[in-house]
């Protein structure tokens, strides 16, 4: 049973990785990384039981607690970029990085703390 569960998690990890590699938008990648983090938590828990070492759940716990900090930092990063871009709109260094807007960022933030 644990083996079947871990194989299913591996497949999901592969799919999330494909989304992260293909993109195309920034949010696809952010969500893919977040998804990958969740799958890692699940994988660690399942493998801990598969190996008969449930005390190793500490690791999954560590991930579950601090995995979303990276996503929050991404949102903060985009906001800073946007402020800089609006201050000096002529100094655009890349188009793709400035398109994120607040509503989209909000929905990503709601999903992040899992």
């Amino acid at each position: 049973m644990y083996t079947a569960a871990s194989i299913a998690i591996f497949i999901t990890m592969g799919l999330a990785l494909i989304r992260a590699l293909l993109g195309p938008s920034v949010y696809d990648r952010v969500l893919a990384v977040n998804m990958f983090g969740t799958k890692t938590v699940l994988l660690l828990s399942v493998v801990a039981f598969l190996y008969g070492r449930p005390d190793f759940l500490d690791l999954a716990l560590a991930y579950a607690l601090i995995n979303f900090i990276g996503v929050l930092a991404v949102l903060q990063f985009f906001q800073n970029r946007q402020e800089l871009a609006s201050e000096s709109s002529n100094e655009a260094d890349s188009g793709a990085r400035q398109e994120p807007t607040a509503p989209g960022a909000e929905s990503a933030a709601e999903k992040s703390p899992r």
Partner: protein
Amino acid sequence: MTVLFGIFLLTLLVVVAIGIVRTGNLFTAVMLTGIFSLLMAANFFVLDAADVALTEAAVGAGISTVLLLGGLALVPGRERNRRRLHGLALGIVSLITLMVVYATFEKPRLGDPSAPVHQHVAPWYLEQTPILVGIPNVVTAVLGTFRGYDTLGEVIVVFTAGIGVLFLLGLPGAIGSRKTEEVQPGNSYLGHHLIPQIVGTLLIPFILLFALYVQFHGEYGPGGGFQAGAIFAAGMILYSLIAGEREALQVITPRVLIGLMASGALLFGGVGIVSMLLGGNFLDYNMLADNPVAGQQWGILIIELGVGITVTGVLLAVYHAFAARGR
């Protein structure tokens, strides 16, 4: 089963590595680096190296993405002077890869009991740890006692790296001419959004508590000073993201951070000096208590605390050096 898991994870690892090299967008590279770190942690875990996996988890999940984004905020988002495929370089790399792959044919199989790594000092560590140190986690015993000099060296390396970053970037209120008051107050984007703020505020105490658990439970389960320091720093970084840069600098002031950086390493070295004054060798914990085993346990507890303090101080100071520069 372990071999299949390993093969699958390592294949994904190679795919991610190629993706990182091929992308010209630095933000994409940072995101893929996050996935790389998650895969690496899963890999360590599947190979039963829980202490290493916890280190990778603590640093990769909380800290490294944040620090890379902090660095990315100071530079343009695209790689400049992107070169086309270089034939000679590709040839050399392929040749070396083939040589390394060829060399692995001589390697003993995974888990082979007659492999050199299981013949050298490892059996001695496994036999002597319950007798000499009396703690269940052999990794902590090796790290703290048998290889205590190496660990002291690692702490000094972390400390030196922190000093280097702070000299380059400065830290408002401690290094450089900027004062803490010059950092913009509040103004945190996430602070205006209810869900990150409430969830973050709820989670911070638990993250800090978990860091303390990892710190002081390292003798019994996976964990220790390095992991605990990274988790503690991640909790404070979360506070800084939610409440604002200046507010976070007022909670743990820059001068305290500098003090933490130095005092952890000093505590570690101080244990060594004390054990010398008590008549033993440098970092010989047997002298710290009447009973040698109890002395070993006290010594490990104190030096792990020193490691945790230095790692927390360095990671937080480096984070603030980046974050305060942006604003």
